[in-house]
């Protein structure tokens, strides 16, 4: 009798202990994901990365500034000008809900135009005025050499101002967050105040957080 009980005990004890040990092993293998980390992945600035939000990102910057630079070059005040027009950049106003480095848009447009317009436009370095004036004063007082008469005013005036606004509209609900951003740029005639060119780009993004964050 006892033998049969012990036999039956051992017969069901084995599978249970095995299943417990299996559970133990499985349970303890979880915890650390990507234990070796994720290697650095290089992607193009105009690609959407795996880290993304609904705000302004590099692919938006590239798309918007490429479009604006191409569009500016087709304006007749630029394309048909006998003397390359001189442009001053005026800071963009950010009206969205995303804090950004506002200079980055105009910097990229300027860079695109300077590299691709083959001298059809010139930009004035107004943000360097303090250093430029200081250099000129040094030349005027003879503290440094000069290849031209430093008393002649050679700082150029602007023919156009390039500026813009970023405007946004946000919707948030149980189904997620939606952000629409309107990127608007203008070229303003400095003499007449006319807006000689204006173009815009629109980008809308939506997303929903994990339930653990809601």
């Amino acid at each position, binding site marked *: 009798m006892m033998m049969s009980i012990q036999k039956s005990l051992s017969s069901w004890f084995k599978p249970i202990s095995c299943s417990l040990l299996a*559970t133990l092993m499985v349970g303890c293998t979880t915890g650390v994901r990507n234990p070796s980390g994720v290697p650095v992945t290089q992607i193009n600035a105009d690609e959407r990365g795996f*880290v993304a*939000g609904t705000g302004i990102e590099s692919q938006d910057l590239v798309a918007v500034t490429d479009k604006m630079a191409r569009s500016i070059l087709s304006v007749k005040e630029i394309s048909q000008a006998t003397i390359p027009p001189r442009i001053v950049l005026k800071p963009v106003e*950010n009206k969205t809900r995303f804090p950004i480095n506002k200079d980055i848009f105009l910097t990229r447009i300027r860079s695109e135009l300077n590299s691709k317009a083959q001298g059809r436009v010139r930009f004035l370095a107004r943000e360097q005025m303090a250093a430029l004036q200081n250099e000129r004063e040094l030349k005027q007082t003879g503290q440094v050499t000069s290849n031209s008469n430093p008393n002649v005013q050679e700082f150029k005036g602007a023919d156009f101002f390039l500026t813009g606004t970023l405007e946004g509209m946000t919707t948030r609900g149980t189904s997620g967050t939606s952000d629409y951003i309107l990127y608007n740029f203008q070229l303003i005639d400095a003499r007449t105040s006319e807006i000689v060119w204006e173009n815009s780009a629109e980008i809308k993004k939506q997303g929903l*957080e994990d339930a653990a964050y809601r």
Partner: protein
Amino acid sequence: MPHIANFESHMFSIRRTVALISGCAALLLSGCVTDSGSGSAMPTAAQLNKPPTKDRVLWNYRNGLSALRQGKQEEAKLQFDEAISVIGNIFGSDKSAKKSRNYFNEESKKNFIGEPYERVMAYFYRGILYWMDGEADNARACFRSGELMDGDAEKKDYRSDFVTLDYLDGYATFKLDGDGSDAFKRAQEVSKIGQLPTYDKKANTLVFLEFGTGPTKYAGGEYGEELRIREGRSVVRGAWFKTGNKAIRIGAYDDLNFQATTRGGRVMDHILANKAVFKSTTDTIGNVAIVGGAITAMNRRSQNVGLGIIAAGVVSKIVSAATTPEADTRTWDNLPQFISFTALELPLGSHTATVEFIDAAGRIVPNLTKTVTFTIVEQRDTVLFVSDH
């Protein structure tokens, strides 16, 4: 006599089996304990200075605010920028969040971004820092994002009801030659201090104030599955800002206790409640099975069945013990209770101001008075941040 010997032998076998199962269970449970417990080895100095990934934003919050209070603005900007880069981009799949929804992982396994009132405050402080740098539009962007973070409240009345954020959104717009009247109207509708000061384009000194100790979190419910807020306390209820012949009394625009306690239920609360029900149910099933199994096993004919039921009960108890419905109580614990703001026009040049914090009766609270020295320059706002901390 042989019968008694057989019975004792049976009981010994049962006890041994139960002991073995219990041993396995203990092994199972102890095997799954992570190394974050108090019994782990002492962390190194490098580990102490580096937060776990899941707590990085919490450290950013705390360190950013500490830096701002110490006047280390560059450090504060770095901290808040890092935090905002996370809390603004949490859409879609998140492994840590997914893990925290699992029955067998605590909510605190997820990457911390804080409750809405905490996220709002990160944007609020970053907005102040932008305005200090003369970037009123980026400051406004932060205030707007902050308002959005506060838009999750269960009851409509409590959504996006930070007075300060709407008021400052309007003020920044007004300063940038826009129309800030809509934002002012929204701020006025939720104001608890009566009529808000109208915007003054000539105001060149913006004073941000904070005082008191902010709310903290704790876990309630049978298994700690309910996230609850312990309200902060503050003797201070306002302040006098005095400079030259000007003295302005400033009341609290927003109370973080109110903001923290009016959010209502979270989606995560339902998940935690389900976890708690699962834990309770599996525990009860375990109890019933063990007792029922033991009774069944007393009968020689149904001994095997009884032992099987006991084993099932133990497994159920193990599952119950491994279920973790505890709410995440990590808290941005150096927040103030109240925030406030005032703007005034001062002549160009150097100024010294005193900020006297006052209690509910208008008495000056001793030992909290601060002296601030600042310079007003042309065509730019001077932004002051004063804390009673």
